[in-house]
């Protein structure tokens, strides 16, 4: 084989494989959303998540949304408008990192 052929086969092919793997590793979607690092700035708007509404009704209490239209799921439950005591924040934990 000539020198060019030798170089292409024994250097070029491994280099091509190396570059392909590197592109797959580093070029992925992770580059688009920056990963959170502690101590870095948090530039997003605050978000507040609640559970999916369908199954989050408590088993025992009345529906809290008395002001909205009649709720189909509440027919068999306790009377709406029953005075339920409002929970006060009394416990939990804090942490820092």
């Amino acid at each position: 084989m000539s020198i060019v052929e030798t170089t292409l086969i024994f250097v070029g092919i491994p280099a091509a494989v190396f570059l392909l793997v590197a592109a797959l590793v580093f070029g992925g979607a992770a580059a688009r959303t920056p990963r959170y690092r502690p101590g870095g700035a948090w530039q997003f708007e605050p978000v507040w998540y609640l559970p999916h509404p369908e199954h989050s009704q408590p088993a025992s209490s009345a529906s809290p949304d008395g002001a909205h239209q009649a709720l189909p799921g509440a027919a068999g439950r306790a009377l709406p408008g029953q005075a339920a005591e409002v929970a006060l924040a009394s416990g939990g934990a804090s942490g820092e990192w």
Partner: protein
Amino acid sequence: MQSGSTASALDVDSDHAGSGTLDNYDPNRRSKDLTTRRDSQTGPDRPFKPAQLARIDEALTLASRETGLLFSVYVGDLGSASRATAEAMFGKLAARHPAPVLLAVSPAQRRLEIVTGGESARRIPNRVASLAALAMRGSFSSGDLTGGIVTGLRQLADAAGVA
């Protein structure tokens, strides 16, 4: 994961934490009403990618469904008095549900607050909440916000037991 279903995200004004659209929360709203909101909840200006949001949604819904408590996750600024802010937000939740649990995470201040009250405080003792906070801190320190939130939700839900 059901297609199109995702947690209801309430955008909160960062100056007045807790003054967001909690009034629009209707526990009996059907899942199809949420499909149009999914597009607005992921993207470059949102803190969680779709897969991460799906994990958080699943953990949140599962925890709430199994325990009967209302778990809620807030990720954003908590101000300098983080505990007071978190308790004020808890108050908004408590007006809508008898036993909420709030997990508030502030990546900017690097603080997390778990707030329980009433029924949820009886079922989740403070030492259990401290253990959950410890686990969450470990995840957050290594940059894994989603994993920390999901871990905290699962620990608290396991401790609270089935409704």
